């Protein structure tokens, strides 16, 4: 294999593909999606505290509302209190100016009130009434306070709790989606590039000066570099936007996790790209590619679903098993690495298994590709391609 020939082919794949409008559009869409995913939740107020405005009618209600305002923080809520007249209360409720109105012994709202709000107000009401009862029974102010605010229960778990896992779980979900899209897209680009050379018959000119293996290697490497560069760009934009908006805490752990995910794209691509090249070499026209690539498309789809399952249970049996299967590992390990649920020996073991599988596949793919790529008339059977003797 001559490196100069491989480099020339790789460079052509890269430069020609970059110039295509579909590539530009695809990159922009990816960046737009990642930016939206990072930016939208804070914009829509999805991750903010719940805010309520409560109207109080009368002294007793005002005390309860005030207690609710003071205790709302424990419920992850914020309450604003306003004194209202009984006459206008219903109108303000109907207009949405108020979320609830408290009178002596009634909590009134327009529709069924928010559970959290009810919880906060009921607790406040209990506190105020119990306090009054205790004072009546002759307890001092200090004793009342001590009785009403006991030490809260401490929470403890068997598994360690990572506060970031929730926010990173979302990131992991999109990592799976992006890896899936990237593997499928670039796999198909390799396959359709091969078919295009067959269909346009340019392959015969190419093979009169370079060998099939050089052509295959150049194509796979060129498109792989492009795929990696595109992912880097998307990841960089995502991280920048995340930092700018403060949506995700970007630290060195996260950077390493993102870097490892990119590395896993390379491993997954190495495994799938050669297989896709064979699927392309077996058919004479682009129309027939869908059919010959179906087994590969299905494999990637199955990996996607397994990855979703693993993401919702990153420590389950499926997660451990799929780390050591060459075609699932590239999609199930990155999300686990992101949330910190993949032990190092699984990451290394999965990488070794995937690399070994790719290394075993490449010569097989090269042989099938060489045997099939010059047969431009009709679809070639896998067995015939395997047996065909190709160029010297």
């Amino acid at each position, binding site marked *: 294999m001559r490196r100069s*020939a491989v480099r*020339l*082919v790789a460079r*052509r794949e890269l430069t*020609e593909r970059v110039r*295509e409008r579909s590539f530009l559009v695809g990159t922009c869409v990816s960046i737009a999606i990642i930016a939206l995913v990072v930016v939208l939740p804070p914009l829509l107020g999805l991750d903010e505290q719940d805010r309520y405005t409560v109207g109080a009618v009368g002294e007793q209600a005002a005390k309860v509302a005030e207690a609710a305002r003071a205790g709302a923080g424990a419920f992850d809520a914020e309450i604003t209190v306003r004194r209202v007249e009984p006459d206008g209360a219903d109108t303000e409720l109907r207009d949405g100016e108020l979320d609830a109105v408290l009178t002596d012994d009634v909590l009134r709202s327009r529709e069924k009130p928010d559970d959290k709000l009810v919880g906060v107000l009921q607790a406040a009401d209990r506190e105020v009434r119990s306090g009054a009862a205790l004072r009546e029974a002759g307890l001092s102010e200090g004793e009342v306070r001590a009785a009403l605010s006991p030490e809260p229960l401490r929470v403890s778990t068997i598994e360690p709790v990572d506060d970031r896992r929730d926010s990173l779980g979302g990131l992991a979900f999109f990592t799976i989606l992006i890896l899936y899209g990237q593997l499928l897209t670039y796999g198909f680009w390799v396959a359709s590039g091969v078919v*295009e*050379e067959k269909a*346009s*018959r*340019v*392959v*015969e*000119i*190419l*093979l*009169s*000066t*370079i*060998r099939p293996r050089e052509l295959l290697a150049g194509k796979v490497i060129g498109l792989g570099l492009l795929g990696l560069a595109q992912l880097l760009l998307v990841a960089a934009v995502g991280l920048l936007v995340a930092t700018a908006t403060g949506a995700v805490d970007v630290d060195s752990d996260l950077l390493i996790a993102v870097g490892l995910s990119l590395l896993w794209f390379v491993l997954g691509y190495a495994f799938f790209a050669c297989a896709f090249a064979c699927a392309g070499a077996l058919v004479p026209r682009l129309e027939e590619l869908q059919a010959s690539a179906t087994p590969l498309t299905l494999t990637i789809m199955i990996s996607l679903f397994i990855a979703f399952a693993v993401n919702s249970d990153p420590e389950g049996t499926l997660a451990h098993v799929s780390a050591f299967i060459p075609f699932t590992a590239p999609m199930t390990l990155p999300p686990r690495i992101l949330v910190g649920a993949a032990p190092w020996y699984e990451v290394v073991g999965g990488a070794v298994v995937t690399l070994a599988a790719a290394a075993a596949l490449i010569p097989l793919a090269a042989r099938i590709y060489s045997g099939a790529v*010059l047969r*431009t008339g009709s679809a070639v059977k896998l067995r015939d391609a395997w047996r065909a*003797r*190709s*160029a*010297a």
Partner: protein
Amino acid sequence: MLELTDLARRYGDVVALDGISFSVAPGQLYGFVGPNGAGKTTTMRIVLGVLAPDRGEVRWRGKRVDAATRSRFGYMPEERGLYPKMRVRAQLVYLARLHGAQPAEAAAAAGRWIDRLGLTERAGDRVETLSLGNQQRVQLAAALVHDPELLVLDEPFSGLDPVGVDVLSGVLSEYAATGVPVVFSSHQLELVERLCEAVAIVKDGRLVASGTVDELRGSDGRTVRVAVAGEDGDGWLAAVPAAETVSRGRDGSLLVALTDGATPEEVLDAARRAGTVTHFSLERPTLTDLFRKAVAT
């Protein structure tokens, strides 16, 4: 000197080549003719290393051809093909580079051929937007852009209009004149006869005749054209059993082939007995005649 020795190749049970040998001298325009399926394309693909032979070898300048040598050959396959979406100039530069040219050389050669073949205004266009004729020119440039030591062209004239045929003939003759052997296949036998110094005729994977056009035509020479006033048929020729009619001209003349020791004089005598002889000449067979005779047997 390009030497092909005993090339053989099968596709499954089909024998495509069964021991083809011939050689092409430096500067020779060499015609490669034969009916469809005779093995011309297979032979050319083997020379270019696109296919491997089952038996036999190809030598160039006395040495067995390897990948490095082949990258200095120029090839135009029968099934034309270029990257449809790639621009003309970029495509030619790329192909020159694949053949081992340095970047500057490749750019200069691409520019030269673009100008020479009248593609200057389309150099920045995608190949798929060009007319068929212009695509053919790009295809020719693709075969020539790396300044090949040997040119192999499979049916280069098919689909060309008369002007295109003239341009291509000119380029090929010019190339051969610089000492580069040029091998091409064609079904246009008059053209091959006019252009080529030597030819090989193949049939069913075997060589049935080869040599210079003069040799091949002279080796026969036993054909006469004769016209007898008032005689449309060839009944009178029955007097010479060893002569037979090859074809009848539009002017009523007969082309007669002589076999088994029959002489032109005997035919002339028989014609004179039949009437007034208005035409009598010894004919040299055309390549077409030779071809028909070669593939008929």
